[in-house]
């Protein structure tokens, strides 16, 4: 048992960590390879790829497209998700379960199926493929996350909080604006960041619904077909770092806010 605790389990853990992160590390390293081809190990090093890739027009414009899509999809999923969460939060029992099931369903649909159906739907509506269609498609897939995160936060909110505001003279609008929304803010923020990251990394929906302007993942895919150069490893590494930073910041923000407000419940540790 001691042997297991001391060596086997930690070894197993670190092996798994290596499996998770080694590919990323290699990708980051390949970006420094002084050659036109992707290969490993690296004999000659250069920072050329990291310097030049930023000035590549198609890469930059695809990132810009992805950012626009991500922002659009996030705004849309908040506009759809927040009122939905308010609605479901009031329900109890059977109908609540049904509503939640309906809302989270898109998250479990096979992505390809969802993307194809959305493509057809857009055709039926007479819309063109392109950025608005991609935004539309992404929002459908991120709304479930937004709603579930907000509902979780709702679950920790004492019903007395809204009642206290009403009791002190607030009408329903002021209750929502001054008490409920601020209380939900960590979850709304978390849902927004999560939506943005999900949208940014999405390939399938962007591929099926996109027009002539590719998103960043779609561009990477297209480039892959013509061969890979270390520049793609470099830009991928930079995107990775930015999205990890955003994700970590969001996670920290949410955790800190949640820790604070978990003590709205009367503490027994009186001093």
């Amino acid at each position, binding site marked *: 048992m001691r042997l297991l605790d001391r060596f086997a389990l930690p070894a197993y853990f670190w092996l798994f960590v290596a499996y998770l992160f080694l590919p990323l590390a290699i990708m980051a390293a390949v970006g420094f390879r002084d050659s036109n081809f992707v290969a490993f190990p690296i004999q000659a090093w250069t920072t050329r790829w990291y310097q030049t890739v930023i000035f590549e027009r198609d890469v930059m414009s695809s990132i810009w497209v992805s950012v626009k899509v991500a922002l659009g999809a996030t705004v849309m999923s908040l506009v759809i998700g927040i009122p939905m969460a308010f609605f479901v939060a009031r329900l109890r029992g059977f109908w609540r379960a049904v509503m939640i099931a309906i809302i989270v369903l898109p998250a479990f649909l096979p992505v390809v199926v969802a993307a194809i159906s959305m493509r057809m739907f857009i055709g039926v509506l007479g819309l063109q493929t392109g950025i608005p269609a991609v935004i539309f498609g992404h929002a459908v897939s991120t709304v479930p996350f937004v709603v579930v995160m907000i509902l979780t936060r709702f679950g920790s909110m*004492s019903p007395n909080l809204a*009642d206290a505001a009403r*009791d*002190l*003279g607030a009408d329903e609008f002021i209750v929502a604006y001054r008490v409920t929304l*601020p209380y939900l803010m960590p979850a709304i923020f978390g849902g927004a960041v999560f939506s943005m990251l999900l949208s940014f990394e999405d390939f399938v929906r962007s591929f099926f619904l996109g027009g002539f302007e590719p998103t960043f993942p779609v561009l990477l895919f297209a480039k892959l077909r013509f061969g890979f150069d270390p520049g793609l490893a470099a830009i991928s590494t930079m995107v990775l770092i930015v999205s990890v930073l955003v994700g970590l910041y969001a996670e920290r923000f949410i955790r800190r806010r949640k820790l604070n407000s978990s003590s709205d419940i009367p503490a*027994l540790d009186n001093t």
Partner: protein
Amino acid sequence: MTAPLQPAIEVRNVVKSFGSMRAIDDVSLSVAPGVFLTLLGPSGCGKSTLLRTIAGFITSDSGSVLIGGRDVTSLPPNARPVNMVFQDYALFPHMTVRENVGFGCEMQGLSRQAREKRVDDLLNLVQLPQLGHRRPDELSGGQRQRIALARALAPDPVSLLLDEPLGALDLKLRLEMQRELKSLQRKTGKTFVFVTHDQEEAMSMSDLIAVMRDGHIEQLDRPEVIYSRPVSLYVGSFVGAANLLEATVDGVDGEQMRVVSRAFQAVLPRSSVTTPGDVTPGMAVTLLVRPEHLQASTPAAGGLSLAGRVSERTYLGNRVHVRFETEDGRSLLADARAEDVAEVGEVFKAALRPESVAVLRS
């Protein structure tokens, strides 16, 4: 209590059902200004429902609620001049203490200056003037409690409604807050309607106690009367410790009556019957005897005497709690002076004055 003033709160024939359960069953109540009223009862007796009906969170099925003489039955909580202190305080976690306390005044449309002044006054009143810029999660339980009180008092309500606000505090702090709450009520002169299931809490703070049961008010009176002259077994045994002795009325003669049972007989004043209605010979009654009225002594003429073997003796310093078993199998509790009492296994003889017995019709 009979001042010719408009009642601060008046509840008229309020009924509220949840499904098939009658949470409030035709309750009427009138609270004079400046009174500390406690709604006392076990959980599920309807006390919180009644409080939330007064606050406006629950709409009654029938009946009406008047606050300061004005019918508010159809008004939502934000239009009623009462404020509530919640069990979990419900302080707004994202606002500072000052913002919390000032929230009600802000809703009333008070100017910024007036509001700031009011917040200062209230923080002084609850003796926490230095905590204005903290957030609720940076306060201790007792501090939160006081801020919740300040917030509810800030809009200057006709009455403060308190829903078991001391339930989350530990015993020492609870006793301290009881004193403070009472002094706050005296200082502000506000009508307090306080909900609790803790009878000691009710006794120590209230001007009036309404003992509730199954959605109705069983008895509404001063604490002393609730304690010494309960109208029912339910009230008598809910409030304080009680020895219950079944007996039969043997005869009624003018202002006296005679009760008998296998173990004792006694002549008691007829006025000791606390249940409404008269007693007649042959009627089954229950005598309610408080432990502190059972004293070791020789029986007085006409009074009640009880004897039994001591089975348990709890020494409490100035007093001793004695449990003794009578010959007919009753187990009684006496709260006696330490020097009077027999040891475990010895015979304990107790007597009590007829006036200290409450006779309840079974």
